[in-house]
Protein backbone atom coordinates (compact mmCIF):
# COMPACT_ATOMS: atom_id res chain seq x y z
CA UNK A 1 0.00 0.00 0.00
CA UNK A 2 1.29 3.36 -0.94
CA UNK A 3 0.53 6.67 0.57
CA UNK A 4 -2.38 7.88 -1.43
CA UNK A 5 -1.91 11.41 -0.25
CA UNK A 6 0.72 11.95 -2.88
CA UNK A 7 -1.70 10.73 -5.50
CA UNK A 8 -3.88 13.77 -5.20
CA UNK A 9 -1.97 15.45 -7.94
CA UNK A 10 -2.05 12.68 -10.51
CA UNK A 11 -4.93 10.60 -11.72
CA UNK A 12 -5.56 7.27 -10.03
CA UNK A 13 -4.79 5.49 -13.26
CA UNK A 14 -1.43 7.15 -13.64
CA UNK A 15 -0.71 6.45 -10.05
CA UNK A 16 -1.29 2.74 -10.46
CA UNK A 17 0.48 2.50 -13.75
CA UNK A 18 3.57 3.99 -12.22
CA UNK A 19 3.57 1.94 -9.08
CA UNK A 20 6.38 -0.34 -10.23
CA UNK A 21 8.80 2.41 -11.15
CA UNK A 22 12.19 2.08 -9.62
CA UNK A 23 12.62 4.51 -6.73
CA UNK A 24 16.00 5.65 -5.60
CA UNK A 25 15.94 4.00 -2.16
CA UNK A 26 15.69 0.69 -3.96
CA UNK A 27 19.25 1.13 -5.09
CA UNK A 28 20.56 1.61 -1.57
CA UNK A 29 21.28 -2.08 -0.97
CA UNK A 30 23.49 -2.17 -4.02
CA UNK A 31 25.34 0.93 -3.05
CA UNK A 32 25.82 -0.61 0.37
CA UNK A 33 27.11 -3.87 -1.07
CA UNK A 34 29.63 -2.15 -3.31
CA UNK A 35 30.70 0.12 -0.49
CA UNK A 36 31.06 -2.85 1.84
CA UNK A 37 33.38 -4.57 -0.57
CA UNK A 38 35.85 -1.72 -0.38
CA UNK A 39 35.22 -0.55 3.15
CA UNK A 40 35.35 -3.86 4.98
CA UNK A 41 37.76 -6.12 3.12
CA UNK A 42 38.14 -8.32 6.17
CA UNK A 43 34.42 -8.92 6.51
CA UNK A 44 33.85 -10.31 3.05
CA UNK A 45 33.16 -13.83 4.24
CA UNK A 46 30.46 -12.53 6.51
CA UNK A 47 29.25 -10.38 3.66
CA UNK A 48 28.91 -13.37 1.37
CA UNK A 49 27.00 -15.29 3.99
CA UNK A 50 24.74 -12.33 4.59
CA UNK A 51 23.97 -12.06 0.90
CA UNK A 52 23.19 -15.75 0.72
CA UNK A 53 20.77 -15.31 3.57
CA UNK A 54 19.28 -12.27 1.87
CA UNK A 55 18.61 -14.33 -1.22
CA UNK A 56 17.20 -17.09 0.92
CA UNK A 57 15.00 -14.67 2.84
CA UNK A 58 13.91 -13.10 -0.42
CA UNK A 59 12.67 -16.46 -1.60
CA UNK A 60 10.85 -16.91 1.68
CA UNK A 61 9.26 -13.52 1.24
CA UNK A 62 7.65 -14.71 -1.97
CA UNK A 63 6.01 -17.55 -0.11
CA UNK A 64 5.32 -15.90 3.21
CA UNK A 65 5.00 -12.24 2.43
CA UNK A 66 3.28 -12.37 -0.90
CA UNK A 67 1.44 -15.66 -0.97
CA UNK A 68 0.78 -15.73 2.77
CA UNK A 69 2.02 -19.28 3.22
CA UNK A 70 3.62 -19.53 6.65
CA UNK A 71 6.35 -22.14 6.54
CA UNK A 72 8.70 -23.55 9.10
CA UNK A 73 10.44 -25.75 6.58
CA UNK A 74 11.92 -23.46 3.99
CA UNK A 75 15.37 -24.83 4.73
CA UNK A 76 14.27 -27.96 2.89
CA UNK A 77 14.90 -26.24 -0.41
CA UNK A 78 18.00 -24.46 0.71
CA UNK A 79 19.35 -27.81 1.82
CA UNK A 80 18.40 -29.61 -1.34
CA UNK A 81 20.10 -26.91 -3.38
CA UNK A 82 23.19 -27.08 -1.20
CA UNK A 83 23.44 -30.83 -1.39
CA UNK A 84 22.82 -30.79 -5.12
CA UNK A 85 25.63 -28.35 -5.74
CA UNK A 86 27.86 -30.13 -3.27
CA UNK A 87 27.27 -33.60 -4.65
CA UNK A 88 27.76 -32.37 -8.19
CA UNK A 89 31.09 -30.86 -7.24
CA UNK A 90 32.22 -33.95 -5.39
CA UNK A 91 31.41 -36.03 -8.43
CA UNK A 92 33.38 -33.94 -10.81
CA UNK A 93 31.06 -31.14 -11.85
CA UNK A 94 33.43 -28.49 -10.65
CA UNK A 95 32.03 -25.57 -12.56
CA UNK A 96 30.14 -23.42 -10.07
CA UNK A 97 27.94 -21.24 -12.25
CA UNK A 98 26.40 -24.02 -14.27
CA UNK A 99 25.65 -25.91 -11.10
CA UNK A 100 23.29 -23.16 -9.98
CA UNK A 101 20.52 -23.90 -12.46
CA UNK A 102 20.79 -27.57 -11.66
CA UNK A 103 20.42 -26.87 -7.96
CA UNK A 104 17.50 -24.58 -8.73
CA UNK A 105 15.85 -27.26 -10.81
CA UNK A 106 16.22 -29.96 -8.20
CA UNK A 107 15.05 -27.73 -5.36
CA UNK A 108 12.24 -26.47 -7.54
CA UNK A 109 11.17 -30.02 -8.29
CA UNK A 110 11.07 -30.81 -4.60
CA UNK A 111 9.05 -27.66 -4.09
CA UNK A 112 6.66 -28.61 -6.85
CA UNK A 113 6.02 -32.08 -5.54
CA UNK A 114 5.71 -31.19 -1.88
CA UNK A 115 3.79 -28.04 -2.68
CA UNK A 116 1.35 -30.05 -4.72
CA UNK A 117 0.73 -32.31 -1.77
CA UNK A 118 0.66 -29.91 1.14
CA UNK A 119 -0.71 -26.68 -0.27
CA UNK A 120 -4.24 -27.91 -0.01
CA UNK A 121 -4.05 -27.22 3.70
CA UNK A 122 -3.83 -23.98 5.63
CA UNK A 123 -2.68 -22.43 8.86
CA UNK A 124 -1.11 -24.54 11.55
CA UNK A 125 -1.62 -27.68 9.52
CA UNK A 126 0.35 -26.28 6.63
CA UNK A 127 2.98 -25.02 9.01
CA UNK A 128 3.42 -28.47 10.47
CA UNK A 129 3.50 -30.11 7.08
CA UNK A 130 6.25 -27.82 5.86
CA UNK A 131 8.14 -28.65 9.00
CA UNK A 132 7.59 -32.34 8.46
CA UNK A 133 8.89 -32.15 4.90
CA UNK A 134 12.08 -30.43 5.96
CA UNK A 135 12.59 -32.77 8.89
CA UNK A 136 12.10 -35.86 6.77
CA UNK A 137 14.62 -34.58 4.28
CA UNK A 138 17.00 -33.88 7.13
CA UNK A 139 16.61 -37.39 8.49
CA UNK A 140 17.01 -38.84 5.03
CA UNK A 141 20.22 -36.89 4.52
CA UNK A 142 21.47 -38.18 7.86
CA UNK A 143 20.67 -41.73 6.83
CA UNK A 144 22.07 -41.48 3.32
CA UNK A 145 25.62 -41.48 4.53
CA UNK A 146 26.98 -42.75 1.24
CA UNK A 147 25.63 -39.77 -0.66
CA UNK A 148 25.68 -36.90 1.78
CA UNK A 149 28.36 -37.84 4.26
CA UNK A 150 25.67 -37.94 6.98
CA UNK A 151 26.35 -36.07 10.16
CA UNK A 152 30.03 -35.64 9.37
CA UNK A 153 29.12 -33.55 6.40
CA UNK A 154 29.84 -33.69 2.70
CA UNK A 155 33.54 -33.35 2.18
CA UNK A 156 35.76 -33.01 -0.79
CA UNK A 157 34.04 -30.21 -2.65
CA UNK A 158 36.51 -28.60 -4.98
CA UNK A 159 35.59 -25.98 -7.51
CA UNK A 160 37.32 -24.72 -10.57
CA UNK A 161 38.00 -20.99 -10.61
CA UNK A 162 34.97 -18.99 -11.68
CA UNK A 163 35.03 -18.32 -15.42
CA UNK A 164 38.35 -20.06 -15.33
CA UNK A 165 39.98 -17.05 -13.72
CA UNK A 166 38.78 -16.24 -10.23
CA UNK A 167 39.48 -18.86 -7.70
CA UNK A 168 37.68 -18.88 -4.37
CA UNK A 169 40.24 -17.15 -2.19
CA UNK A 170 40.77 -17.24 1.52
CA UNK A 171 39.61 -13.65 1.92
CA UNK A 172 36.33 -14.39 0.26
CA UNK A 173 36.66 -11.75 -2.46
CA UNK A 174 35.52 -14.03 -5.22
CA UNK A 175 32.78 -15.47 -3.07
CA UNK A 176 31.57 -11.97 -2.21
CA UNK A 177 31.38 -10.77 -5.77
CA UNK A 178 29.89 -14.03 -6.95
CA UNK A 179 27.17 -13.91 -4.30
CA UNK A 180 26.50 -10.25 -5.01
CA UNK A 181 25.98 -10.90 -8.70
CA UNK A 182 23.70 -13.87 -8.12
CA UNK A 183 21.77 -11.89 -5.53
CA UNK A 184 21.39 -9.06 -7.98
CA UNK A 185 19.98 -11.38 -10.59
CA UNK A 186 17.66 -12.85 -7.98
CA UNK A 187 16.49 -9.41 -6.96
CA UNK A 188 15.76 -8.32 -10.51
CA UNK A 189 13.77 -11.48 -11.01
CA UNK A 190 11.81 -11.27 -7.78
CA UNK A 191 11.12 -7.60 -8.23
CA UNK A 192 9.68 -8.22 -11.66
CA UNK A 193 7.65 -11.06 -10.30
CA UNK A 194 6.02 -9.18 -7.46
CA UNK A 195 5.20 -6.18 -9.59
CA UNK A 196 3.79 -8.37 -12.30
CA UNK A 197 0.13 -9.33 -12.31
CA UNK A 198 1.21 -12.67 -10.93
CA UNK A 199 2.63 -11.04 -7.83
CA UNK A 200 -0.43 -8.88 -7.41
CA UNK A 201 -2.64 -11.89 -7.67
CA UNK A 202 -0.67 -13.55 -4.88
CA UNK A 203 -1.60 -10.65 -2.69
CA UNK A 204 -5.17 -11.17 -3.76
CA UNK A 205 -5.00 -14.82 -2.77
CA UNK A 206 -3.58 -13.93 0.60
CA UNK A 207 -6.19 -11.28 1.18
CA UNK A 208 -9.21 -13.18 0.03
CA UNK A 209 -8.95 -16.51 -1.69
CA UNK A 210 -12.70 -16.84 -2.09
CA UNK A 211 -12.83 -13.77 -4.25
CA UNK A 212 -9.86 -14.86 -6.28
CA UNK A 213 -11.72 -18.02 -7.16
CA UNK A 214 -14.72 -15.97 -8.10
CA UNK A 215 -12.79 -13.81 -10.53
CA UNK A 216 -11.43 -16.86 -12.25
CA UNK A 217 -7.90 -16.99 -10.91
CA UNK A 218 -6.45 -20.49 -10.63
CA UNK A 219 -5.62 -20.10 -6.96
CA UNK A 220 -4.05 -23.44 -6.21
CA UNK A 221 -2.01 -23.41 -9.35
CA UNK A 222 -0.61 -19.99 -8.55
CA UNK A 223 0.25 -21.08 -5.03
CA UNK A 224 2.06 -24.12 -6.30
CA UNK A 225 3.90 -22.04 -8.87
CA UNK A 226 5.10 -19.49 -6.39
CA UNK A 227 6.06 -22.23 -3.97
CA UNK A 228 8.09 -23.87 -6.70
CA UNK A 229 9.74 -20.64 -7.75
CA UNK A 230 10.62 -19.82 -4.17
CA UNK A 231 11.97 -23.32 -3.68
CA UNK A 232 14.18 -22.97 -6.73
CA UNK A 233 15.43 -19.62 -5.52
CA UNK A 234 16.13 -21.05 -2.08
CA UNK A 235 17.96 -23.84 -3.86
CA UNK A 236 20.19 -21.31 -5.55
CA UNK A 237 20.94 -19.75 -2.18
CA UNK A 238 21.78 -23.18 -0.83
CA UNK A 239 24.02 -23.91 -3.78
CA UNK A 240 25.87 -20.65 -3.19
CA UNK A 241 26.34 -21.65 0.40
CA UNK A 242 27.74 -25.03 -0.58
CA UNK A 243 30.04 -23.49 -3.14
CA UNK A 244 31.39 -20.70 -1.02
CA UNK A 245 31.79 -22.88 2.05
CA UNK A 246 32.93 -25.87 0.03
CA UNK A 247 31.28 -28.04 2.59
CA UNK A 248 27.71 -29.13 3.27
CA UNK A 249 26.49 -30.16 6.69
CA UNK A 250 23.13 -31.43 7.88
CA UNK A 251 22.37 -28.02 9.30
CA UNK A 252 21.36 -26.80 5.85
CA UNK A 253 18.18 -28.80 6.28
CA UNK A 254 17.62 -27.98 9.91
CA UNK A 255 14.69 -26.50 11.72
CA UNK A 256 17.11 -23.95 13.13
CA UNK A 257 17.84 -22.63 9.69
CA UNK A 258 14.18 -22.48 8.72
CA UNK A 259 13.55 -20.59 11.91
CA UNK A 260 16.50 -18.28 11.44
CA UNK A 261 15.50 -17.19 7.96
CA UNK A 262 11.96 -16.65 9.14
CA UNK A 263 13.20 -14.48 11.96
CA UNK A 264 15.39 -12.45 9.64
CA UNK A 265 12.60 -11.83 7.21
CA UNK A 266 10.04 -10.87 9.80
CA UNK A 267 12.62 -8.75 11.51
CA UNK A 268 13.17 -6.83 8.31
CA UNK A 269 9.56 -6.69 7.27
CA UNK A 270 7.38 -9.17 5.47
CA UNK A 271 5.87 -8.79 2.04
CA UNK A 272 7.80 -5.71 1.03
CA UNK A 273 10.64 -7.06 -1.06
CA UNK A 274 13.26 -5.21 0.94
CA UNK A 275 12.56 -6.86 4.24
CA UNK A 276 15.10 -9.48 3.32
CA UNK A 277 17.70 -6.85 2.49
CA UNK A 278 17.25 -5.16 5.82
CA UNK A 279 16.46 -8.07 8.09
CA UNK A 280 19.18 -10.52 7.15
CA UNK A 281 22.11 -8.11 7.43
CA UNK A 282 20.90 -6.44 10.59
CA UNK A 283 20.11 -9.69 12.27
CA UNK A 284 23.32 -11.37 11.26
CA UNK A 285 25.48 -8.41 12.09
CA UNK A 286 23.73 -8.05 15.42
CA UNK A 287 24.24 -11.71 16.09
CA UNK A 288 27.86 -11.51 15.06
CA UNK A 289 28.54 -8.49 17.22
CA UNK A 290 26.63 -9.76 20.22
CA UNK A 291 28.15 -13.20 20.06
CA UNK A 292 31.54 -11.63 20.04
CA UNK A 293 30.76 -9.49 23.06
CA UNK A 294 29.11 -12.25 25.01
CA UNK A 295 29.66 -15.67 23.47
CA UNK A 296 27.70 -17.37 26.20
CA UNK A 297 24.55 -15.34 26.61
CA UNK A 298 24.36 -13.42 23.38
CA UNK A 299 21.05 -14.93 22.37
CA UNK A 300 19.45 -13.30 25.35
CA UNK A 301 20.18 -10.01 23.70
CA UNK A 302 19.05 -11.25 20.33
CA UNK A 303 15.83 -12.45 21.93
CA UNK A 304 15.38 -9.10 23.57
CA UNK A 305 15.98 -7.43 20.25
CA UNK A 306 13.23 -9.52 18.66
CA UNK A 307 10.79 -8.85 21.47
CA UNK A 308 11.48 -5.16 21.37
CA UNK A 309 11.13 -5.12 17.61
CA UNK A 310 7.72 -6.69 17.81
CA UNK A 311 6.61 -4.47 20.65
CA UNK A 312 7.67 -1.20 19.14
CA UNK A 313 8.16 -1.96 15.49
CA UNK A 314 5.21 -3.75 14.01
CA UNK A 315 5.92 -4.83 10.49
CA UNK A 316 9.61 -5.11 11.16
CA UNK A 317 12.25 -2.48 10.61
CA UNK A 318 10.75 -1.44 7.30
CA UNK A 319 7.34 -1.18 8.90
CA UNK A 320 8.72 1.39 11.29
CA UNK A 321 10.52 3.17 8.51
CA UNK A 322 7.22 3.48 6.65
CA UNK A 323 5.47 4.77 9.71
CA UNK A 324 8.12 7.39 10.32
CA UNK A 325 8.02 8.47 6.73
CA UNK A 326 4.28 8.90 6.89
CA UNK A 327 4.54 10.89 10.11
CA UNK A 328 7.09 13.16 8.53
CA UNK A 329 5.02 13.68 5.43
CA UNK A 330 1.97 14.68 7.43
Amino acid at each position, binding site marked *: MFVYRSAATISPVD*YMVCSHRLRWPELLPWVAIIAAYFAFPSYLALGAQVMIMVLFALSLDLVLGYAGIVTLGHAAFFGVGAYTAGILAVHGWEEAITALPVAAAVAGAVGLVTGYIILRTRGLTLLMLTLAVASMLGEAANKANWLTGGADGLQGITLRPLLGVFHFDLFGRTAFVYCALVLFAGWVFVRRLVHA*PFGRSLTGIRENAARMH*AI*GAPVRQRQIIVYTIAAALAGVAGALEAQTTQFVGLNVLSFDLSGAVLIMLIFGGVGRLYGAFVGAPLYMVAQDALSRLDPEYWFFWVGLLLVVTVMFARGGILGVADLLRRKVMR
Partner: protein
Amino acid sequence: MTVALETRGLRKNFGAMVVTNGVDFKLAAGARHALIGPNGAGKSTFINLIAGRLTPSAGSVLLAGENVTALSQEARVKRGLGRTFQINTLFANLTVLENVTMAVSERLGRGGDKLRFAGSRRDIVEEAYELLKRLHLAEDALRPVREIAYGRQRLVEMAIALGLRPRVLLLDEPAAGVPSAETAVILDVMEALPADMAVLIIEHDMDLVFRFAKTITVLVRGAVLTEGTPAEIVADPRVREIYLGEGRHG
Protein backbone atom coordinates in the same frame (compact mmCIF):
# COMPACT_ATOMS: atom_id res chain seq x y z
CA MET B 1 -34.28 -18.47 -27.12
CA THR B 2 -30.77 -19.62 -26.25
CA VAL B 3 -30.28 -20.93 -22.79
CA ALA B 4 -27.36 -19.28 -21.05
CA LEU B 5 -27.60 -21.22 -17.83
CA GLU B 6 -29.46 -24.31 -16.82
CA THR B 7 -29.65 -26.53 -13.78
CA ARG B 8 -31.04 -30.01 -13.80
CA GLY B 9 -32.24 -31.69 -10.65
CA LEU B 10 -29.78 -29.68 -8.62
CA ARG B 11 -29.57 -30.88 -5.05
CA LYS B 12 -27.53 -29.95 -2.04
CA ASN B 13 -27.68 -31.15 1.46
CA PHE B 14 -25.60 -30.29 4.47
CA GLY B 15 -25.74 -33.44 6.50
CA ALA B 16 -29.37 -34.34 6.83
CA MET B 17 -30.61 -30.92 5.88
CA VAL B 18 -31.66 -30.50 2.29
CA VAL B 19 -31.02 -26.94 1.18
CA THR B 20 -31.49 -27.26 -2.53
CA ASN B 21 -34.06 -29.82 -3.47
CA GLY B 22 -33.98 -30.86 -7.10
CA VAL B 23 -34.11 -27.51 -8.81
CA ASP B 24 -34.64 -27.39 -12.56
CA PHE B 25 -33.97 -23.91 -13.72
CA LYS B 26 -33.29 -22.13 -16.99
CA LEU B 27 -31.93 -18.69 -17.65
CA ALA B 28 -32.18 -17.38 -21.19
CA ALA B 29 -29.52 -15.23 -22.75
CA GLY B 30 -30.36 -11.61 -22.04
CA ALA B 31 -32.72 -12.57 -19.22
CA ARG B 32 -33.49 -10.18 -16.38
CA HIS B 33 -34.52 -12.68 -13.80
CA ALA B 34 -34.99 -12.43 -10.06
CA LEU B 35 -34.84 -15.14 -7.44
CA ILE B 36 -36.80 -14.42 -4.31
CA GLY B 37 -37.82 -16.40 -1.29
CA PRO B 38 -37.77 -16.43 2.49
CA ASN B 39 -34.58 -16.25 4.45
CA GLY B 40 -32.80 -19.54 4.37
CA ALA B 41 -34.74 -20.74 1.35
CA GLY B 42 -31.50 -21.64 -0.35
CA LYS B 43 -31.03 -18.78 -2.78
CA SER B 44 -27.41 -18.05 -2.00
CA THR B 45 -26.72 -21.73 -1.90
CA PHE B 46 -28.19 -22.02 -5.36
CA ILE B 47 -25.83 -19.34 -6.64
CA ASN B 48 -22.91 -20.98 -4.92
CA LEU B 49 -23.77 -24.24 -6.60
CA ILE B 50 -23.95 -22.62 -10.00
CA ALA B 51 -20.69 -20.79 -9.45
CA GLY B 52 -18.97 -23.91 -8.23
CA ARG B 53 -18.24 -22.65 -4.74
CA LEU B 54 -20.25 -25.57 -3.42
CA THR B 55 -20.38 -28.99 -5.02
CA PRO B 56 -23.88 -30.30 -5.54
CA SER B 57 -24.96 -33.54 -3.93
CA ALA B 58 -26.75 -34.41 -7.16
CA GLY B 59 -27.79 -32.85 -10.42
CA SER B 60 -25.93 -30.79 -12.93
CA VAL B 61 -25.16 -27.24 -13.98
CA LEU B 62 -24.96 -26.29 -17.65
CA LEU B 63 -23.45 -23.12 -19.00
CA ALA B 64 -24.48 -22.36 -22.58
CA GLY B 65 -25.29 -26.00 -23.00
CA GLU B 66 -22.00 -27.29 -21.62
CA ASN B 67 -22.07 -29.40 -18.49
CA VAL B 68 -19.79 -27.64 -16.03
CA THR B 69 -20.74 -29.53 -12.90
CA ALA B 70 -17.31 -31.04 -12.53
CA LEU B 71 -15.43 -27.87 -13.32
CA SER B 72 -13.74 -25.59 -10.82
CA GLN B 73 -14.97 -22.11 -10.02
CA GLU B 74 -12.27 -20.54 -12.09
CA ALA B 75 -13.07 -22.67 -15.11
CA ARG B 76 -16.66 -21.52 -14.90
CA VAL B 77 -15.59 -17.92 -14.66
CA LYS B 78 -13.53 -18.44 -17.79
CA ARG B 79 -16.71 -19.67 -19.47
CA GLY B 80 -18.46 -16.44 -18.73
CA LEU B 81 -19.90 -16.68 -15.26
CA GLY B 82 -19.68 -13.76 -12.87
CA ARG B 83 -21.08 -13.32 -9.40
CA THR B 84 -21.27 -11.07 -6.37
CA PHE B 85 -21.42 -12.13 -2.76
CA GLN B 86 -24.17 -11.42 -0.32
CA ILE B 87 -21.61 -10.79 2.38
CA ASN B 88 -18.76 -8.59 1.18
CA THR B 89 -15.88 -10.65 -0.08
CA LEU B 90 -13.29 -8.07 -1.03
CA PHE B 91 -9.57 -7.47 -0.85
CA ALA B 92 -9.94 -5.28 2.18
CA ASN B 93 -6.38 -3.98 2.29
CA LEU B 94 -6.10 -3.19 -1.39
CA THR B 95 -7.42 -0.03 -2.91
CA VAL B 96 -10.74 0.07 -4.68
CA LEU B 97 -8.99 0.45 -8.01
CA GLU B 98 -6.70 -2.50 -7.31
CA ASN B 99 -9.70 -4.61 -6.42
CA VAL B 100 -11.30 -4.01 -9.76
CA THR B 101 -8.09 -4.14 -11.77
CA MET B 102 -7.48 -7.58 -10.39
CA ALA B 103 -10.72 -8.80 -11.91
CA VAL B 104 -10.17 -7.14 -15.27
CA SER B 105 -6.70 -8.51 -15.66
CA GLU B 106 -7.84 -12.02 -14.77
CA ARG B 107 -10.55 -11.73 -17.40
CA LEU B 108 -7.98 -10.82 -20.01
CA GLY B 109 -5.86 -13.79 -18.96
CA ARG B 110 -3.06 -11.54 -17.77
CA GLY B 111 -3.34 -12.41 -14.11
CA GLY B 112 -0.62 -15.01 -14.27
CA ASP B 113 1.92 -12.90 -16.14
CA LYS B 114 5.19 -13.11 -14.37
CA LEU B 115 7.77 -11.01 -16.10
CA ARG B 116 5.76 -8.06 -17.27
CA PHE B 117 4.95 -5.23 -14.88
CA ALA B 118 1.30 -4.92 -14.00
CA GLY B 119 1.41 -1.23 -14.83
CA SER B 120 2.54 -1.86 -18.36
CA ARG B 121 -1.03 -2.58 -19.31
CA ARG B 122 -2.54 0.84 -18.95
CA ASP B 123 -5.66 -0.22 -20.77
CA ILE B 124 -6.50 -2.65 -17.98
CA VAL B 125 -6.27 -0.02 -15.30
CA GLU B 126 -8.23 2.40 -17.40
CA GLU B 127 -11.01 -0.06 -17.95
CA ALA B 128 -11.22 -0.65 -14.21
CA TYR B 129 -11.31 3.07 -13.57
CA GLU B 130 -14.11 3.54 -16.05
CA LEU B 131 -16.13 1.00 -14.14
CA LEU B 132 -15.53 2.86 -10.91
CA LYS B 133 -16.76 6.02 -12.51
CA ARG B 134 -19.94 4.32 -13.62
CA LEU B 135 -20.55 3.18 -10.06
CA HIS B 136 -19.73 6.61 -8.64
CA LEU B 137 -16.71 5.16 -6.89
CA ALA B 138 -14.03 7.16 -8.66
CA GLU B 139 -13.30 9.45 -5.75
CA ASP B 140 -12.49 6.46 -3.58
CA ALA B 141 -10.32 4.78 -6.21
CA LEU B 142 -7.12 4.95 -4.19
CA ARG B 143 -8.56 4.31 -0.76
CA PRO B 144 -8.17 0.91 0.81
CA VAL B 145 -11.49 -0.85 0.69
CA ARG B 146 -11.63 -1.38 4.43
CA GLU B 147 -11.83 2.35 5.00
CA ILE B 148 -14.83 3.13 2.88
CA ALA B 149 -18.40 2.98 4.15
CA TYR B 150 -20.24 -0.29 3.95
CA GLY B 151 -22.71 0.81 1.35
CA ARG B 152 -19.90 1.79 -0.98
CA GLN B 153 -18.19 -1.50 -0.43
CA ARG B 154 -21.33 -3.12 -1.77
CA LEU B 155 -20.79 -1.18 -4.96
CA VAL B 156 -17.23 -2.46 -5.19
CA GLU B 157 -18.66 -5.97 -5.00
CA MET B 158 -20.65 -5.15 -8.07
CA ALA B 159 -17.77 -3.45 -9.86
CA ILE B 160 -15.56 -6.51 -9.52
CA ALA B 161 -18.20 -8.76 -11.01
CA LEU B 162 -18.76 -6.36 -13.86
CA GLY B 163 -15.05 -6.22 -14.50
CA LEU B 164 -15.33 -9.83 -15.57
CA ARG B 165 -17.80 -8.92 -18.35
CA PRO B 166 -19.65 -12.14 -17.76
CA ARG B 167 -22.30 -13.58 -20.06
CA VAL B 168 -24.17 -14.78 -17.01
CA LEU B 169 -24.18 -12.49 -14.02
CA LEU B 170 -25.34 -13.69 -10.61
CA LEU B 171 -26.09 -10.92 -8.13
CA ASP B 172 -26.65 -11.85 -4.52
CA GLU B 173 -28.51 -9.00 -2.86
CA PRO B 174 -26.49 -6.25 -4.49
CA ALA B 175 -28.57 -3.51 -2.93
CA ALA B 176 -28.62 -4.76 0.64
CA GLY B 177 -26.98 -2.12 2.75
CA VAL B 178 -26.99 0.39 -0.05
CA PRO B 179 -29.10 3.37 0.91
CA SER B 180 -32.17 4.11 -1.07
CA ALA B 181 -30.54 6.97 -2.87
CA GLU B 182 -27.69 4.85 -4.15
CA THR B 183 -29.93 1.99 -5.18
CA ALA B 184 -30.72 4.15 -8.12
CA VAL B 185 -27.06 3.91 -9.13
CA ILE B 186 -27.27 0.15 -9.01
CA LEU B 187 -30.42 0.12 -10.99
CA ASP B 188 -28.89 2.41 -13.60
CA VAL B 189 -25.89 0.22 -13.92
CA MET B 190 -27.96 -2.92 -14.18
CA GLU B 191 -30.19 -1.42 -16.77
CA ALA B 192 -27.20 -0.43 -18.83
CA LEU B 193 -25.84 -3.95 -18.91
CA PRO B 194 -25.42 -5.48 -22.38
CA ALA B 195 -28.67 -6.83 -23.71
CA ASP B 196 -27.32 -10.31 -24.28
CA MET B 197 -26.04 -10.71 -20.75
CA ALA B 198 -28.18 -12.99 -18.63
CA VAL B 199 -28.73 -11.55 -15.16
CA LEU B 200 -29.99 -13.44 -12.15
CA ILE B 201 -30.58 -11.28 -9.12
CA ILE B 202 -31.43 -12.21 -5.55
CA GLU B 203 -32.95 -9.34 -3.64
CA HIS B 204 -35.25 -8.66 -0.76
CA ASP B 205 -35.85 -5.09 -1.89
CA MET B 206 -39.05 -5.61 -3.79
CA ASP B 207 -39.00 -2.17 -5.36
CA LEU B 208 -35.77 -3.00 -7.05
CA VAL B 209 -36.93 -6.47 -8.02
CA PHE B 210 -40.16 -5.30 -9.56
CA ARG B 211 -38.48 -2.55 -11.48
CA PHE B 212 -35.70 -4.63 -12.84
CA ALA B 213 -36.88 -8.19 -13.31
CA LYS B 214 -38.92 -9.35 -16.25
CA THR B 215 -39.38 -12.78 -14.70
CA ILE B 216 -39.25 -14.05 -11.14
CA THR B 217 -38.69 -17.43 -9.53
CA VAL B 218 -39.81 -18.03 -5.98
CA LEU B 219 -37.71 -20.48 -4.02
CA VAL B 220 -39.04 -21.99 -0.81
CA ARG B 221 -37.24 -24.57 1.26
CA GLY B 222 -34.88 -25.34 -1.55
CA ALA B 223 -37.54 -25.98 -4.15
CA VAL B 224 -39.16 -23.80 -6.79
CA LEU B 225 -42.57 -22.70 -5.61
CA THR B 226 -43.59 -20.79 -8.67
CA GLU B 227 -42.28 -18.82 -11.59
CA GLY B 228 -43.79 -15.92 -13.49
CA THR B 229 -43.88 -12.27 -14.33
CA PRO B 230 -43.79 -9.74 -11.50
CA ALA B 231 -47.48 -9.20 -11.78
CA GLU B 232 -48.22 -12.91 -11.51
CA ILE B 233 -45.98 -13.28 -8.53
CA VAL B 234 -47.48 -10.38 -6.64
CA ALA B 235 -50.89 -11.79 -7.27
CA ASP B 236 -50.00 -15.25 -6.02
CA PRO B 237 -51.51 -15.65 -2.54
CA ARG B 238 -48.96 -18.28 -1.56
CA VAL B 239 -46.13 -15.89 -2.26
CA ARG B 240 -47.87 -13.15 -0.34
CA GLU B 241 -48.29 -15.38 2.63
CA ILE B 242 -44.87 -16.92 2.72
CA TYR B 243 -42.77 -14.07 1.59
CA LEU B 244 -44.22 -10.71 0.74
CA GLY B 245 -46.51 -10.29 3.68
CA GLU B 246 -49.79 -8.44 3.64
CA GLY B 247 -50.67 -4.95 2.73
CA ARG B 248 -47.51 -3.97 0.97
CA HIS B 249 -45.97 -4.08 -2.44
CA GLY B 250 -49.46 -4.40 -3.82
